[in-house]
Each structure stands twice: as structure tokens, then as C-alpha cells.
């Protein structure tokens, strides 16, 4: 076989592959949003934070508001959220993200501002800031990731840890008689007049991911209306600290967390108001 023939055959083979592959720009139906950076995330395998970050980035890209959005990261596992989102961001002290977000929004009222907070940050150390930010009806979006545990510090009991649920500081299970009850902060803030939109979602399956994205999108869109605060809870998992595989943690979440923290809207704007 001459060299020339070989080259032609290889060329032919490549062309054949190219023809068969449907992976072309025309056929692309889903890829990560541009605002989500390529930096590999530090989260444990199967952690819901990654999906939540991506959804924020998708909404920012789809609304075309990357230049006008400022995010506030909390202290907790998502302390490094600013490493993954290609927007201006501020990293707040533990529990104070909503106060930080309040101030940014007050001095930049035309920008989109959101805080991203975990359950320890938002519902324990930052309870006062959360409630007062909601009650003042600041025109911003709070995204609340509730996985019922302190992930970053290694699995201690959170304000949202379920009764009987084990953690490193409730090793025999949360005893509500001595450790108190889990705090349904989302139900609590939904009562406040400053809160315009309040919903509880999850990112455990494709359907819930779509619903969570829609909720985040509404949270950004409502900022334009200056009607008040949007509060989006995402019930999530913590495979590492729940000591389960990602799939098992999702199943446990569906059976236990969703029973205590039922998914759905807690407060939706009046249609006429919209």
C-alpha cells in the first residue's frame, strides 16, 4: 500500500466519523453557562451546591445581567462560591451575607444582588440579619441551601437538623428536648410583609432542577419590580457528612427532609400585582 493511499483512507475515516457524530454546534442543546467558570469545584461528589451555582449562572446568562449582578458568598461550604461564578462578589462574615447584600443593594439600587447562604449561616448565627433583611423587604434575592448540617466544619448539628438525625454534635440523634427543634425559617420569613416571593425547591432530579431554576429566575426578575425580597430555599444533601453515597443521600433527603421541609411555594405574588 502506497503512502498516499494510506493518507487518503485515514482522511476518509475521519470524514466518516465527522459525518456520524451529532456533536456539532448546531445540535448542542445543553452546556454549562458562561458565567459558571471552568474552575473545578471543591465540593464533595454529588453535593447540591454545584447544581445551585450552575442554576444561578444559567439565570444570569439567560437574563443577560452578568454585568449588573453582585453576589454575596457566606461562610460555610459555599464560602468559595466566588471562585466559580464570573461576577463581582463579596465574601461575607458568617451569618451576615444578607446584611452585606442589603448594603450593596442600597447603594446600588439598579443592580441585581443576591446572597447565597447555608442553613448554619442563615438560620443560626445570621437569624437576626435574615429576619430583618426579609422584614425590611430589601429588593434582593436570598438563596438558602438547607442540608440540615454544618458541612464545612465537619458535620455538626445545624438549626435545621431533623429530630433524631445524627451529627457529630448530636451523636445519638437530635434530641429536641435538649437540643431544640429544627427551625423552619422559610415558613417563618414567609409571614413577613417584606417578603414578596418565598418558595422551597430542591435539585435532586431533573424536574426539581428545572423548578429551582425557575424560582431563582423569578427572584432576579422580581428585583426589577422593587416589590420586596425573594427567598428561595433549596433543600439539599450532604453525602459526606450524612455518611451516605450521593444517590443514597438523595433518597434519604426525599424520604426525610422533604417530609419535614415540603417542597412548593410558600408565598407567591398576587397575579394582579405582577
Amino acid at each position, binding site marked *: 500500500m502506497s503512502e498516499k493511499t494510506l493518507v487518503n483512507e485515514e482522511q476518509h475515516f475521519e470524514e466518516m466519523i465527522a459525518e456520524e457524530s*451529532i456533536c456539532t454546534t448546531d445540535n*448542542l442543546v445543553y452546556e454549562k453557562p458562561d458565567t459558571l467558570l471552568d474552575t473545578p469545584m471543591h465540593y464533595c*461528589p*454529588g453535593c447540591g451546591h454545584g447544581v445551585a*451555582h450552575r442554576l444561578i449562572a444559567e439565570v444570569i446568562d439567560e437574563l443577560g445581567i452578568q454585568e449588573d449582578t453582585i453576589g454575596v458568598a457566606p461562610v460555610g461550604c459555599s464560602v468559595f462560591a466566588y471562585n466559580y461564578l464570573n461576577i463581582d462578589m463579596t465574601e461575607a462574615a458568617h451569618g451576615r451575607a444578607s446584611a452585606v447584600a442589603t448594603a450593596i443593594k442600597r447603594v446600588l439600587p439598579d443592580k441585581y444582588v443576591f446572597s447565597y447562604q447555608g442553613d448554619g449561616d442563615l438560620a443560626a448565627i445570621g437569624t437576626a440579619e435574615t429576619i430583618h433583611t426579609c422584614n425590611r423587604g430589601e429588593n434582593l434575592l436570598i438563596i438558602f441551601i438547607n442540608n440540615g448540617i454544618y458541612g464545612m466544619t465537619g458535620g455538626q448539628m445545624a438549626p435545621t437538623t431533623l429530630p433524631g438525625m445524627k451529627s457529630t454534635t448530636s451523636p445519638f440523634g437530635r434530641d429536641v428536648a435538649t437540643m431544640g427543634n429544627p427551625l423552619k425559617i422559610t415558613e417563618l420569613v414567609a409571614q413577613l410583609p417584606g417578603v414578596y416571593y418565598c418558595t422551597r425547591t430542591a435539585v435532586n*432530579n*431533573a424536574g426539581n432542577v428545572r423548578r429551582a431554576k425557575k424560582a431563582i429566575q423569578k427572584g432576579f426578575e422580581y428585583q426589577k419590580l422593587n416589590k420586596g425580597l425573594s427567598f428561595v430555599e433549596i433543600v439539599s444533601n450532604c453525602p459526606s457528612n450524612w455518611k451516605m453515597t450521593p444517590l443514597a443521600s438523595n433518597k434519604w433527603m426525599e424520604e426525610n427532609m422533604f417530609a419535614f421541609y415540603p417542597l412548593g411555594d410558600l408565598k407567591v405574588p398576587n397575579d394582579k400585582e405582577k
Partner: protein
Amino acid sequence: MAKVKGDIVIDIEKCKGCELCIAACPQDSLELSRKLNSKGYQYMVKIEDNCTGCTNCALVCPEGIIKVYRQTTKKKEPVATISNLTGDITVTVNS
């Protein structure tokens, strides 16, 4: 309904093998690799050629590393081409 052909591309170096996409795939197209990536994780591989490009795997992927492609049933053809721009313009409708 015409059969939809889909495909996915996974950035296997960033995959942490959490398997959420396996559970999300209605076609059971995905499986964990036997090999490890450079981070030491087993990663996702497509083992069946029955992908419909439904995007479920990409939606649940915490790493955002799955690109989904779907072949449209009808190949996109230009409805018109414009030629001879220096002189008279000729328009040909192909449909």
C-alpha cells in the same frame, strides 16, 4: 414520533463519579468507568447508543461538565442563498 438521536460529551477529568447522572438517565445509557481519572475518581461513560439528548444528566450534574447534543429531525437547510452581490441579486428558494 420520529426517533430522536442524542449524544453527550463529559469532561471526564472534572467528573467525581457521583453517579447522579446514572440515576437521572431514562435510557440507562451511563455507567461508571473502570479506569480512574487523574483525580482518582471513576468517571461517567456512555455505554449505550440510545441517548435521546433529554439533558437530564446535565441538569443534575453538580459539576456542570456534561454537554448535550440532539439531532434535529430535519437537517437545517438554507431557505435562500444570495449570490452575485456585485450585480443583480438572484434569490433561489430551496424548499
